[in-house]
């Protein structure tokens, strides 16, 4: 029992950091442009596959930054080529992005087939049984935890301490206000997509090297990102981190004590409760008019 709780805390802490990483890009794009990017999961998936391919030939330390760059460019390209032409219509935008996601699945099926692609970021596992924790977390899980927090920290610094980043924050608070103070909305949005892509790339590498890459792996991260964003509050990075921990622990709790099949059900209940009683989320802004 005590061991179970220790496992829960350990696994929950590690997985939640990755969840936060998954959700932040999604919430940033939602916050800045009001765009729901349903291709966010597909970007994460492309991160996993790009890294999987590169890591076959190159050292992970080389493959890692290249992957992040590639996914950032993919995300930015998605915005430039498709989304910016339809973004004024919310419905068309999320239909278009979801179609991009399923199209990405087909591309991967054509190129890699349906069997999982394995990859190694770091190998090895830690045996914690002597410490009363009946789990053997792999080192890559720790690395994922560290990468996630480093990425979140860098983003935090960028958004709050640099002028460039502050323009993103301003645009997410009030587009009109930002425009009045001379912020170029189009370039802010482009930058947001670029950054969100980089974060998705990092998340993809972690997910790929912990569980392998599969053509349908875009679905769960997307669902997670959505739940986290609703619970945390749209556009709030702090909210996303807190909500990621809420969801991460809820999932670990159900898996440990209820059963694997129920994973996600509890999160859905929490999600519905939030939508009905606290639609602005934990750290969302209350919208005031006039």
């Amino acid at each position, binding site marked *: 029992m005590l061991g179970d709780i220790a496992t829960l805390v350990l696994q929950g802490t590690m997985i939640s950091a990755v969840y936060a990483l998954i959700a932040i890009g999604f919430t940033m794009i939602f916050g800045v442009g009001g765009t*729901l990017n*349903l291709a966010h999961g597909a970007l994460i998936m492309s991160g996993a596959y790009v890294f999987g391919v590169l890591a076959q030939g190159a050292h992970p330390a080389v493959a890692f930054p290249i992957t992040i760059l590639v996914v950032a*460019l993919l995300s*930015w*390209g998605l915005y*430039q*080529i*498709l989304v*910016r*032409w*339809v973004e004024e*219509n*919310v*419905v*068309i935008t*999320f*239909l*278009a992005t*979801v*179609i*991009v996601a*399923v*199209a990405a*699945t*087909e*591309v991967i*099926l*054509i190129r890699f087939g349906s069997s999982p692609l394995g990859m190694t970021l770091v190998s090895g596992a830690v045996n914690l049984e002597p410490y009363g924790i009946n789990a053997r977390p792999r080192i890559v899980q720790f690395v994922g935890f560290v990468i996630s927090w480093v990425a979140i920290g860098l983003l935090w610094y960028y958004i709050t301490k640099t002028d*460039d980043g502050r323009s993103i924050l301003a645009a997410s608070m009030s587009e009109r206000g930002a425009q009045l103070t001379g912020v170029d909305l189009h*370039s802010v949005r*482009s*930058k947001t997509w*670029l950054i969100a892509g980089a974060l998705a790339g990092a998340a993809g590498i972690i997910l790929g090297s912990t569980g392998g890459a599969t053509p349908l792996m875009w*679905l*769960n991260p*997307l*669902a997670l990102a*959505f*739940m986290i964003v*609703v619970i945390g509050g749209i556009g709030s990075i702090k909210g996303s981190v807190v909500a990621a921990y809420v969801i991460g622990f809820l999932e670990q709790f159900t898996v440990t004590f209820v059963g*694997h*099949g129920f*994973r*996600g*059900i509890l999160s*859905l209940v929490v*999600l*519905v409760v939030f*939508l*009905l009683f606290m*639609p602005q989320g934990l750290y969302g802004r209350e919208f005031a008019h006039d």
Partner: protein
Amino acid sequence: MISTILLLGTVCSTVTGRLGRVAGTLRRQVLWPVGRTLERLLAPIDRVLDPVADGYNRSLGPYFGEMSGLQFGVIAVSVAGLLTAGYWAPMVGPLLGGGLLRTLALASIWAIFAMSWDIQSGYTGYISFGHSALSGAAGYTTALLIVHVDPTLSIWVTGSVSVLAALVVGLLIALPTLRLEGPYFSLITFVAVLLFYRLTTAFSSLGGIPGFGQPDVFTWDPMLRYYYMAIPMLLIALALTFMARSNLGMILIAIRENEPAVSAAGLNPTKFKLWSFMLSSVPMGIGGVLLVGFTGNVDPSTFVVVDNSIEMIAIAVIGGMSSILGPLGGAFLFEVLNHQVLHGYSTPVRYLFLWLIVLFVLVFARDGLFRAIWHRLGAVRGESE
């Protein structure tokens, strides 16, 4: 670093801009002349058919929408074509790779799904990504009844219970979510269908990944099978068109365009949204029952998987959202392309091609192909537009 990329972006968007100009030239130099020639050819037919259409417009027009002569002609020919397909499809089929009747039967089922999706999502703008959960509920109910209750139950019993199950699941999804703003509604339907999928694959009592093979197909006779699918489809099309051309359709579109204005008109938007969801759930259930009778197997990847929901949406988008008949046409176009025209390619290649068409329609022809054609047909003699 970022500025270099932004520079690249400017270059890229100039290219896109130029592409836009090329498309413009293409439209002026090629499409318009072709359109004008077609108009000149079709105008006399329109004139000839006008008296017939007028008769229709006076009697049934107020209930199903008014049509021009040519539009009436196209509808009449299409309905006749669908009703006689059992006889001509086996002859034409070999030219398109064979099995045409099977494709048309499948297209009928997808037409039901796409039209049902349309009356709810296309009309109200509350886009549901979870509609496959409704047909899935019906399919799984049929399977569970046959497996656990009585394998000899009549289709009328299993069918009605299954449609009821679709309605119940529809209410379960709609009641807590329809008060939410559009994007939240969409995302929660998305999460709901993912969870439903996870449940069906994780629990062996729900058949797990292989699902249930016990339900029987309606018939092995391809012609009969086609009519089992096509007749309900046409009846549903008739019913939904009737609904869509009534006050209800007007209110649902107003909800999509301007929900506060609907409240200001003294109409309760939540009530109408809920009603549209119920109106959508029932034919979704019927479609689910038909799909069981078509495949004889109920499993997560035939029924629940989110790709199914996306395929319905894609069909509706290609045909033209919020028109009921657009999605119907879209279903036949989509399935014929998928199973006949492209049948030599592997499944992912076919779908990739189809998704790209959908993207193209979303960006360049938002109203959908069939709606665009319909409006051109209505205006061959230049009355409107």
